[in-house]
């Protein structure tokens, strides 16, 4: 499937909803029976920002989105949109467009009628509805699919119609609930870029729920990492990756290796090198700890009498990821693929650390 719309060029489909609205989660708690899905969750979203809620299953990201959409009522706390408390406003009065994970097009309506549905609810004239539906379908690259029914379209096309439908009502906030997870990899990458381009062009505040960190990092202005109903860290993708605020973020975002270390004042010794401890030292306990290191934090040299032994090798394109067993730790290390040509499973290597500072955490209990 090829996306034909040039979303960088302005067209007649100017669905500019007064730009985006600021959104605030203010200490929001939502419980289901004895389970607390959202626990005093607070987050400020700037107008026109695309923020990704990222976390493992059950972390509360979908609950946060549903509370914002009005499908769930918070037990405590407030939701502010445009500085107005909408916590008790029913979903149909919030003016938020939503794209769902499962294809949510109405099977009895064709693409054009699906897009025009929200406009019909708003009592717009038939000619206006048709014109706007046409413009929006053109915006998502489906101008020639107006009369097609959902069962006649592919998953990617259905999600693009769903996006056009959500934009048709000129929402104050656009909500995306894992809209790409049911699509195959190629379509997912194309649609991801298209959603981002449209969002930036319309400057619409967007909340995007995903468990796919690649998706979150590549699309979002900021990523909000959640765990067990809490906000762990909210930051730009690069900060999140390079300066994780908590061990959970360090482990969840990207790939990291754990190495046993002992704190010595403001540094730890990792593979024979002194490395500064990152972050607030007052929060770091003394004694035995574990350092979290990224695959690019290591250098590898082949050495027939080296202490490390390569036990796994995965080709990733420009780089190759090596699994290296050394001193009881199993490290994941990225090397340039050209360098990895002479490194096979069983090769002995020397490994050193090139990181300026490291995040440390209390040791994980052995399984």
């Amino acid at each position, binding site marked *: 499937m090829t996306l034909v719309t040039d979303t960088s060029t302005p067209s007649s489909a100017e669905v500019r909803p007064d730009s985006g609205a600021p959104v605030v989660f203010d200490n929001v708690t939502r419980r289901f029976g004895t389970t607390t899905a959202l626990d005093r969750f607070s987050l400020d979203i700037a107008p026109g920002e695309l923020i990704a809620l990222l976390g493992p299953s059950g972390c509360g990201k979908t609950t946060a989105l549903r509370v914002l959409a009005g499908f769930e009522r918070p037990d405590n706390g407030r939701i502010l949109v445009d500085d107005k408390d909408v916590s008790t406003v029913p979903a149909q009065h919030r003016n938020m*467009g*939503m794209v769902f994970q499962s294809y949510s097009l109405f099977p009895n309506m064709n693409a054009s009628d699906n897009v025009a549905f929200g406009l019909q*609810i708003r009592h717009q004239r038939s000619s206006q509805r048709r014109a706007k539906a046409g413009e929006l379908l053109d915006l998502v690259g489906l101008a020639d699919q107006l009369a097609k029914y959902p*069962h006649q379209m592919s998953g990617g096309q259905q999600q693009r119609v769903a996006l056009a439908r959500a934009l048709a009502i000129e929402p104050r906030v656009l909500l995306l609930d894992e809209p790409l997870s049911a699509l195959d990899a190629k379509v997912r990458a194309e649609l991801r870029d298209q959603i981002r381009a449209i969002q930036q062009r319309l400057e619409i505040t967007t909340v995007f729920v995903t468990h796919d960190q690649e998706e979150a990092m590549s699309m979002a202005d900021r990523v909000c990492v959640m765990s067990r109903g809490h906000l762990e860290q909210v930051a730009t993708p690069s900060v999140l990756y390079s300066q994780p605020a908590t061990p959970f973020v360090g482990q969840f975002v990207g790939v990291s290796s754990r190495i046993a270390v002992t704190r010595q004042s403001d540094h730890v010794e990792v593979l024979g090198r002194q490395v500064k401890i990152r972050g607030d030292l007052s929060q770091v306990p003394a004694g035995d700890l574990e350092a979290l290191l990224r695959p690019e934090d290591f250098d590898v040299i082949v050495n027939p009498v080296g202490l490390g032994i390569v036990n796994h090798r995965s080709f990733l394109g420009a780089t190759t990821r090596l699994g290296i067993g050394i001193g009881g730790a199993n490290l994941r290390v990225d090397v340039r693929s050209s360098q990895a040509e002479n490194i096979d499973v069983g090769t002995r290597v020397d490994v050193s650390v090139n990181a300026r500072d490291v995040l440390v955490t209390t040791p994980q209990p052995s399984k």
Partner: protein
Amino acid sequence: MASLELGQDIADPLRIDAPYEADAPLNKHRRRFRWGRGAILIITAAYFVVPFYAGMEYSLQRPTGGFSLTPLSQIGSAPGFVSALWLSTQLAVITMLVVMALMVPTVIYVHLRLPRFRRVMEVITIFPIIIPPIAYSVGVLEAAPQWLRNSQYLLAIVYVILAMPYVYRSLDSGLGALDVKTLVEASRSLGSSWLMTIWRVLVPNLRAALMSASVLTLALVFGEFTIANVDNWQTIPVWIYLAPTDNPRINTLVAMIALLATAVVLILIVSLDRSQSRNSRRSR
């Protein structure tokens, strides 16, 4: 990042080179199965067609030999037929409207808010089939207020209860083929009220289920004899059994026509239902 990792092994490369002969035993089994299926189909068809053919032969046979379509033209003028048909039609329409008005919101509510209650609903809605019709007749007549006792609406209320198992199952199966929760939430996020969501989004997608439920209700009302007879209402089935015609062949002919019409409508509904299920699956 983890999601970028490549280098996975093919789980079972042998499957790619699996010998083609491996399919042979399966084909044999399929062939045997088709024969068995054909035999069952022929026996089942005979079960329905033979009595139907016998009934039609009896109705259209001349006493002197040969067949005639004259009895068809005599149906309309048979004493009591038109009034019985009118009464059955009224009852069918009222029953359909009431049972749909009650069951459509109920089944939608159960699917959306009380999915765990579906099993309980299945059990509850089976009761009208278990309870003997005569018990309804006596029980409802006793419980009904005086003003309703001599009205055909009382019979319609009984039929609403009798139709409940069929209507519930049709609607339950229709809603089961849809992602109701997502459709409702999509509709509401676009500004639609609950009533509008049911009317514009759910009901059109339940067309086949609603038609199926309607025809089953129609068949029930046009086929129910015991309660109508005990309550002294001359509906079509009662007329077929008791009508004072001088030609019993006409009664049989009416029964056969009703049977044929029901069968044709049911076949149409099954075809429509299959097509809708296919479309729903594709669009999910």
